[in-house]
């Protein structure tokens, strides 16, 4: 059994991989303390999945919290993990898009699973989950509900700008001007869709893309990106949020 963990800044995702199959998975809050999060992971495995620490042959970790974990582990690169997990899920796919909380990343992979090219969002953070969170806070809606709310929109509005906070003031202006929440939500999702599509177009993508990360389940976003880049998008099998954790575990397995 290999424990794969992806320690994000707010949530830690963990999977147990056995013979390349996921036999257990869980999510725990990180609360800025990767070590404590790892403790919660092990505890959850024991209690909910009856997996003892001793059953775990190896722990592989990726993500923001990795350098801050004192538990013995192998470190796995974020991009390498995404590449491996996508190959594991859909061996024919040669590209991955990860829509995470802090970062948006797109990468292409060769037939050996090696990363060929990648791009991540630039300095100003528009285009990531955090950005959407801030925007929707101003509208008092959640990221989860946004796609459904946006579906009722009846007007196209363009948002521009670079800074998430200034986008937010544009959003406030729109509210101020009496725009409907549906239309504004659609405008926000549209802006993010375009940013993500532009990022994807910066690298060469031959065919289908595997999409992982917390925002991969947002249908409005995915359909929009797919239409703009004209490539089929496949949501990472099972829970797309686990893509990093599975990739990390696969990385450890590959070197055994």
């Amino acid at each position, binding site marked *: 059994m290999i424990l794969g963990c992806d320690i994000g800044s707010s949530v830690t995702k963990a999977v147990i991989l056995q013979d390349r199959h996921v036999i257990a998975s869980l999510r725990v809050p990180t609360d800025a303390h990767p070590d404590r999060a790892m403790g919660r992971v092990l505890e959850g495995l024991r209690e909910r999945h009856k997996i003892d620490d001793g059953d775990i042959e190896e722990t592989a970790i990726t993500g923001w919290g990795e350098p801050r974990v004192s538990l013995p582990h192998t470190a796995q690169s974020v991009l390498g993990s995404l590449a491996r997990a996508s190959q594991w899920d859909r061996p024919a796919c040669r590209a991955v898009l990860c829509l995470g909380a802090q970062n948006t990343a797109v990468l292409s992979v060769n037939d050996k699973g090696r990363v060929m090219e990648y791009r991540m969002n630039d300095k100003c953070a528009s285009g990531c989950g955090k950005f959407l969170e801030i925007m929707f806070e101003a509208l008092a809606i959640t990221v989860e509900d946004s796609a459904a709310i946006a579906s009722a929109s009846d007007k196209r509005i363009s948002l*521009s700008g670079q800074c998430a906070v200034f986008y937010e003031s544009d959003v406030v202006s729109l509210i101020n001007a009496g725009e409907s929440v549906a239309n504004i939500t659609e405008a926000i999702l549209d802006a993010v869709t375009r940013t993500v599509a532009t990022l994807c177009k910066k690298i060469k993508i031959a065919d289908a893309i595997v999409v992982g990360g917390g925002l991969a389940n947002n249908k409005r976003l995915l359909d929009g990106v797919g239409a703009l880049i004209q490539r089929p998008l496949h949501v990472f099998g099972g829970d797309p949020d686990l893509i990093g954790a599975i990739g990390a575990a696969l990385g450890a397995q590959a070197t055994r």
Partner: protein
Amino acid sequence: MNGQSAVPTTRSSAVEELSSLPLRADNPYIDAWKEKGGKVFGYVCSYVPEELLHAHPAGLLPIRMGAVGCETTEDADVCLHKYICSFTRCLLQLGLAGEYRFLDGFVMTDACDQMRRTYEYWRDEVGLDFLTMVTIPHSVEGEQRFAWYLEEIRRLGEAIAERYGSYPTDDHLRDSIATYNRYRKLMLELYALRAQAAPKLTGAEAMRIARAGFNMPKQTFNDRLEEALGELAARPGIDDSRARIMIGGSYLDDTYLIDIIESTGAVVVTDALCSGRKYIESMVSEDGDPTEAIARRYFEHTPCPRMIGGFENRMEFTRRLAQEAAVDGVIFHRLPFCDNHAVENAMESRELNKLDVPTLSLESEYLATDEGRIKTRVQAFLEKIGR
């Protein structure tokens, strides 16, 4: 067919027609021109000698390209990083999206790094029948520099001749010079109507009329403008304006900023924009070799910050306009990442402040959506100058 338009003018008011001319694919003049077999040439900079294009016997309609109405830059952003100015990206976006499909040719300059670096994308990704560049020295001092520019212009003429046959004769050129000089004189009259104690039109109207001038055959535009001047002169002036404002900066063809300024009750009575007064100021000499005369006017009288050593002249120009129009304050606009105008505006602003002319510097994207933030600054500026 040189310059004579077939589009019937049905509207009763010339002002109304000119201030609402549809752009690009919806522009009836471009349609009519193309239908008659004419070529349409776009350009983006005040250093492109329009007379030379206009005079061509093949019937070239020069239009100054803008990107009003562009809503997104997602494709251009694939090519150009966001550190490239948004006007450049919006324009390329329209090119990539096929909005400039009707163009036969595009004449660029190397006047600014950002625009000139999109040349290859226009060449490789957009595809036009004719694409070239007129390159410009960075100083007007010294005959060798003028000679370079003159040769660039001759080469442009030769390249067009090679592609579309025959080179304009001196008579063609003189006709064009006359047409353009008339255009400039009429536009200066329009500015005079703005600069009156009770301005006859708003800054937004003036900008829309000027934009029509970028997008119509000049003879037709001149005739309509002459009518429009009559209509405007007969109007009552705006005698309740809160403040008289001049705007300065680079290329601006969207009334966005002026609308914000004028929504506070101020009137934009003049401008020192590259797409405004700077574009129409000073005539081409009607004597001597016409090509050389055209080159002289464009090279020496276009006050562009790219010219090192030209600051005094540019400042003098701005000062003169501010005095002529008796402005209460100057609002400088720049696009983010525009080095030329960011520094120029700061330098001019200092000089104006020394003369007790209050200034405000604003930065906004070409596709601005930040009305609230700009309006607060403009309103506070007016409050500051006691208006």
